[in-house]
């Protein structure tokens, strides 16, 4: 035995003494063994104070051996960085662990923060609501924030890898204690797909802390046989080191799986049936100074002895209100711990138990409770008192009983978090003084201690029954297996957990949030009597343990103080997560490039080779501009614009939304969607149109082509492609299912290459194609289908730049070939054009950019569609809204062009048109696009301006970042207003 491990037993336990591990606690070098948790190793080394409490900075020691731990949440470094709030009671010790107490200044053993404890009477529940109002909260906030928090942000790189998994199963069994194992064994033969999930790295649950005879063999043997049987069955999957953390609607549960070192897996499981065998959590007793290091839950003390071969202290008093703690006392005694007394709140104790205590010479103090505990740094003694006849006070205080440890048992409370998350109701079981599951709308059953069956025999038999029943309910057939134990256990709890004496401001209800009985009394006095108010006002149950050992006692107190039955005060809502889950695991691989996988153009590689600088446009990576010959952004955009205006430009428009509609009612359908008249469009022709929301607001613009009588091709803006397909489907499926039309999105099927400019036609005519590109055969706003370079092609004469323009659609995979052919043919007569140049070109032409030049208030009338709306006789989406008084108002913000009076003024998008200062400055609209036009060699812009249509030529003031200057309002079209070039 390593010399430091003073409290380590020489034999027994599930640790491997041949594998010593060294670790550091607050820079002190210590040793433990493989199989230890961090907490058990600390206890073995006689470390009693591990942390300071949240509010009063009191010393705190390890209080549990499980997930309910409230004190030993420490900062642990695994070499990669410090991770705070690690539950050391369930974290396996590994070699070289560096463990630190997160609080305590200068150290956890000498903490100046203790001054808060000396002045504790000031810091009651909600004190901060009563003070810190002057001059304002911000003055005090920094200090309060620095004191809060359970550790620092994790440091260093996150070395974990995170994965997501999905699984369906017929039966999900949560918890592999006696009940869960018996249930799993029962369901094996059914053929159902069974998933058994256990948070510990070993199966067995309570049996690991307290062995028993099951089916006449030692439980260790029974567990290993069970494990083999389950692992051999092809229909059963066993997951260990995995915690079911959330129970959602439709029987979907989430699991955080830590079974692989350095990997965290987040599982989503959809289960036909769920069986919760989640066990129960021992509840603390409430008495004066019940938070001293050395005081721990009774069954935790037993687990440290039996599982980890650690005695928590040399001398331990056991205090209980039920039979179960006697087993603890006997285990402690049998392993060399002196037990000076068992303090029992009950008057009548079963003879059998009394005899066993007598045999060991352990005195029982019945009808008694702990009055107070003493000690300077750690526990040194306790004082006991007798309950009065009415149980409302205590009499006959004893002398101090010396001890270094105190094992407390207030009985068990079923672990109902998941059941409650599932929407299940709990009811108060008076004889057990705890809440048990009652009914749930989801397909879930509960077995064993989780259902309030605290004896091993019941857990085994009921687990076996519940397992086969759940499998049967899932549609499979099996019978419960026979599983029995000769170990008998009794419970006989008396519902006394709170000593009716002592200073209530020193009696802790919630160790983690540092909430005392006095806080709860104060809350009730101030009328925070709803259980939710009590929780929020006192913060009981709101800390990182979510009240696993404090909610029940708080509710009991609330019921007592308000003189209501506990069942009536109810419980607060349990929410996911049962155990906090690393956020990286929930995000999984959705990070960086995978956060939103980039969509690449079909000719991406070509753009890369030709100097494209890419930018995100939604999920697409598109060439913002081409840094040909190392030119900068401004130069590139200017040269691209000029190249297109002078000769020809090539633009990759593949992300353009493309939706095909076919069927006899395709035209009728679109006619109801578009503001424009669709029915008059002849096959082979194209029209520009607007789509509106029900409120008349422009949601998208673009062209639609009639490819054949019953076949349309709709183009949406790139950004809205997904939204518009959903929009069309919604109208078709929900409102007009009678229309015969099939809507299919073909955005990524077709690559789009636009060639535009005065030389566009000449260039195109040099390409192998059966399409006639002449002005007569293919005028502006018409479409031709045929082949190009031997592949199917659709060529649309549409323009977003104001130049003669051909939009060539070919199968996406051929897109790069078309680009290469055109560029080779064009040589220096053609240049690739990036998105920014394209947007600039359309600004010169005064074309709308929906989402930039329009906002959530812009209707069809505001952009000059009044004539088209008036002419259309039939109904369309949004029409009714355009008839409303406000939509017809003359002073609406309308689409205009704008140019600064003074060429030196840097007109920028985002500036506002404002009323003169002397009229009270008010926004009259916004500059929605602005740029220096390389073509016109001056600054131009577009905007939305109140009464804009009638203000052409007016001078208006704009405001931008505190600066104002004057601009002239113009027609929105700056380039080729007659359309001569475009129609060429």
């Amino acid at each position: 035995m390593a010399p430091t491990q003073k409290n380590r037993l020489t034999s027994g336990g599930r640790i491997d003494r041949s594998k010593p591990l060294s670790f550091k606690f607050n820079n002190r070098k210590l040793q433990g063994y493989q199989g230890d948790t961090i907490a058990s190793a600390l206890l073995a080394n006689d470390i009693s104070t591990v942390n300071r409490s949240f509010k009063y900075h009191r010393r705190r020691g390890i209080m549990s051996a499980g997930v309910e731990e409230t004190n030993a949440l420490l900062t642990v470094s695994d070499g990669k960085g410090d991770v705070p709030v690690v539950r050391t009671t369930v974290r396996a010790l590994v070699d070289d662990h560096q463990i630190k107490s997160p609080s305590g200044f200068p150290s956890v053993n000498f903490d100046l923060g203790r001054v808060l404890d000396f002045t504790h009477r000031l810091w009651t529940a909600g004190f901060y609501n009563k003070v810190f109002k002057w001059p304002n909260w911000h003055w005090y906030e920094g200090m309060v924030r620095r004191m809060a928090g359970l550790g620092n942000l994790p440091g260093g790189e996150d070395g974990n890898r995170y994965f997501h998994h999905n699984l369906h199963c017929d039966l999900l069994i949560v918890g592999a204690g006696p009940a869960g194992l018996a249930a799993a064994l029962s369901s094996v033969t059914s053929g159902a797909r069974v998933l058994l999930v256990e948070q510990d790295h070993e199966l067995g649950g309570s049996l690991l802390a307290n062995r028993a005879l099951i089916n006449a063999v030692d439980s260790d043997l029974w567990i290993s046989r069970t494990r083999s049987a389950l692992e051999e069955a092809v229909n059963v999957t066993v997951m260990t080191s995995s915690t079911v953390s959330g129970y959602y609607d439709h029987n979907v549960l989430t699991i955080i799986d830590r079974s692989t070192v350095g990997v965290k897996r987040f599982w989503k499981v959809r289960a036909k049936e769920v069986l919760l065998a989640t066990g129960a959590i021992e509840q603390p007793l409430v008495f004066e100074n019940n938070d001293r290091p050395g005081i721990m839950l009774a069954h935790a003390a037993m687990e440290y002895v039996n599982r980890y071969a650690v005695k928590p202290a040399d001398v331990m008093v056991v205090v209980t209100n039920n039979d179960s703690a006697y087993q603890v006392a006997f285990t402690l005694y049998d392993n060399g711990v002196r037990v000076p007394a068992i303090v029992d709140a009950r008057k009548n104790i079963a003879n059998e138990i009394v005899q066993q205590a007598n045999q060991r010479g352990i005195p029982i103090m019945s009808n008694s409770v702990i009055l107070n505990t003493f000690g300077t740094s750690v526990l040194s003694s306790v004082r006991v008192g007798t309950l009065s006849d009415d149980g409302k006070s205590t009499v006959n205080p004893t002398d101090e009983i010396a001890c270094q440890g105190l094992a407390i048992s207030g009985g068990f409370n079923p672990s109902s978090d998941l059941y409650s998350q599932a929407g299940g109701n709990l009811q108060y079981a008076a004889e057990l003084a705890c809440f048990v599951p009652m009914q749930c709308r989801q397909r879930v059953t509960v077995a064993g201690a989780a259902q309030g069956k605290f004896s091993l025999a019941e857990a085994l038999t009921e687990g076996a029954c519940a397992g086969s029943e759940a499998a049967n309910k899932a549609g499979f057939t099996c019978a419960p297996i026979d599983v029995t134990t000769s170990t008998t256990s009794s419970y006989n709890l008396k519902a006394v957990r709170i000593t009716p004496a002592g200073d209530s401001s020193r009696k802790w209800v919630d160790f983690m949030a540092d909430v005392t009985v006095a806080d709860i009394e104060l809350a009730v006095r101030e009328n925070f009597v709803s259980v939710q108010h009590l929780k929020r006002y006192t913060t009981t149950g709101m800390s990182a343990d979510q009240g696993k050992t404090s909610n029940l006692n708080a509710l009991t107190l609330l019921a007592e103080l308000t003189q209501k039955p506990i069942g009536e005060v109810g419980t607060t809502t349990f929410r996911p997560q049962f155990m906090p889950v690393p956020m990286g695991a929930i995000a999984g691989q959705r990070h960086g490039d995978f956060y939103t996988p980039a969509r690449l153009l079909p000719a991406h590689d070509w753009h890369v080779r030709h100097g494209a600088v890419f930018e995100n446009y939604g999920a697409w990576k598109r060439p913002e501009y081409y840094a040909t010959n190392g030119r900068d952004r401004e130069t590139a955009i200017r040269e691209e614009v000029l190249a297109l205006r002078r000769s020809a430009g090539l633009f990759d428009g593949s992300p353009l939304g493309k939706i095909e509609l076919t069927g006899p009612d395709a035209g009728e359908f679109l006619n109801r969607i578009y503001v424009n008249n669709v029915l008059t469009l002849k096959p082979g022709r194209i029209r520009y149109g607007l789509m509106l929301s029900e409120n008349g607001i422009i949601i998208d613009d673009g062209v639609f082509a009639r490819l054949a009588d019953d076949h349309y091709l709709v183009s949406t803006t790139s950004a809205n492609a997904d939204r518009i397909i959903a929009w069309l489907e919604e109208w078709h499926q929900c409102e007009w299912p009678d229309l015969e039309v099939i809507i299919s999105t073909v955005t990524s099927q077709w690559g789009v290459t636009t060639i535009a400019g005065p030389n566009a036609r000449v260039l195109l005519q040099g390409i192998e194609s059966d399409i006639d590109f002449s002005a007569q055969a293919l005028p502006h706003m018409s479409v031709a289908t045929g082949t190009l370079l031997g592949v199917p092609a659709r060529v649309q004469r549409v323009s977003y730049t104001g130049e003669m323009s051909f939009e060539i659609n070919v199968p996406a995979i051929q897109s790069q070939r078309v680009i290469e052919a055109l560029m080779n043919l064009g040589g220096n007569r053609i240049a690739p054009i990036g998105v920014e140049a394209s947007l600039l070109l359309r600004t010169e032409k005064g074309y709308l950019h929906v989402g930039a030049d329009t906002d959530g208030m812009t209707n069809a009338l505001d952009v000059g569609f009044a004539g088209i709306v008036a002419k259309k006789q039939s109904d369309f989406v949004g029409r009714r809204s355009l008839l409303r008084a406000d939509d017809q108002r003359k002073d609406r913000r309308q689409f205009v062009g704008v140019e600064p009076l003074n060429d030196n003024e840097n007109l920028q998008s985002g500036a506002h048109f404002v009323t003169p200062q002397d009229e009270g400055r008010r926004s009259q609209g916004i500059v929605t696009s602005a740029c220096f036009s390389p073509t016109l060699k001056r600054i131009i812009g577009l905007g939305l301006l109140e009464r804009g249509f009638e203000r052409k030529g007016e001078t208006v003031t704009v405001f931008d970042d505190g600066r104002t200057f004057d601009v002239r309002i113009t027609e929105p079209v700056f380039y080729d207003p007659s359309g001569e070039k475009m129609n060429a």
Partner: protein
Amino acid sequence: MNGYSFLSVVRQALNGHKGWPVVWRSPEPKKNYDVVIVGAGGHGLATAYYLAKNHFIKNIAVLEKGWLGGGNTGRNTQITRSNYFWPQSAAFFDHSLKLYEHLGQELNFNVMLSQRGMLTLAHSLHELEGMRRWANAIKINDIDAEVLTPIEVKKLVPLIDLNCRFPIRGGFIQHRGGISRHDAVAWGYARAASAYGVDIIQQCEVTAFNISSGRVTGVHTTRGTIGADKISIAVAGHTSELARMADFRVPVTSMALQAMVSEPIKPCLNTVVMSPIIHMYASQSDRGELVFGGGADLYNSYAQRGGIPLLQENIAALLELFPAFSRLRLMRQWAGIVDITPDTSPLMGLTPVQNLYISGGWGTGGYKAIPAGGETMAYTIANDQPHPLIEDFGLERFESGALIDEGAASGVAH
């Protein structure tokens, strides 16, 4: 209000805090009230308070089917800001922020307003242009706003990853924006209203309205019938249900909006951060938890719980901006039901039923509006005409088309 001070805490400490009075009374309902407010959330309680304080109406009941402050008031992410685009919204929400700035003192109850700044991120140059548009609107409305460069963003929020999947190109900040303590707002108003004699009646669900010849005269509740001259509805999450009981319809859809918190850690995020593109907002509470959320669950629901897809979405978004949070653990997730109107602006004012008033449609942003919502609704009820600040937020706008679309300005697709 008074009674709470450092001195009174010290004095009470000396006698074991035995002398504190109830924060609010819990009386039995009377037969009749001048005004009944349905819903004891922030808005309902504030309305009662300002009715009593500003309009001297004291015979008021606030009816609550659960526990006061238990709806969206107690479920939101506590963000307080007034960086709105349209002048009507700006005037209303900035008035609210100004009331918040002195609320702790006015109510004699510390609501822990922390004006640590509300930063909105831009992830593209076009978004930055949109932000310029937005920031200019705010400035014209005489509210503070500052456009920031990426370097300035990084300085303010050192943990942020500027080079995330959608690199950060800048942002803008409202320095007066921040967070406060939601429960304290409800409790503070409840205490102050109760002190004025307002009856706050919890566990009292309204099941029907008494309406005769187009005029409301009372309510049926699970605790009996209660008569009232005037009634106001303030039940975020259930506005359409209550309207249906009174036989009129409101253009509202209800969805679950999730919020979640990490385990508490020492201060590491000192600004409220919001990204409209990586749909996420986050702040760190005074207790040390990261409090964050994102978009609403994608289906209509009255169930106050969230699903897994949005949980994953929100956390992925948070980690994309703050990779350093990946090893922090998620402690708790919950949801509230938000009433969303077609233009994402609230509904306030008169209803088709005489003497029946409504405050709802708060969408995802009702918390920050509590003081102004209460004050203006009190005026509206007392005078039977909308307060000037909320004239444009009435139900009529859905008939006239005079919408106030803040969705567009806040970067949400329209």
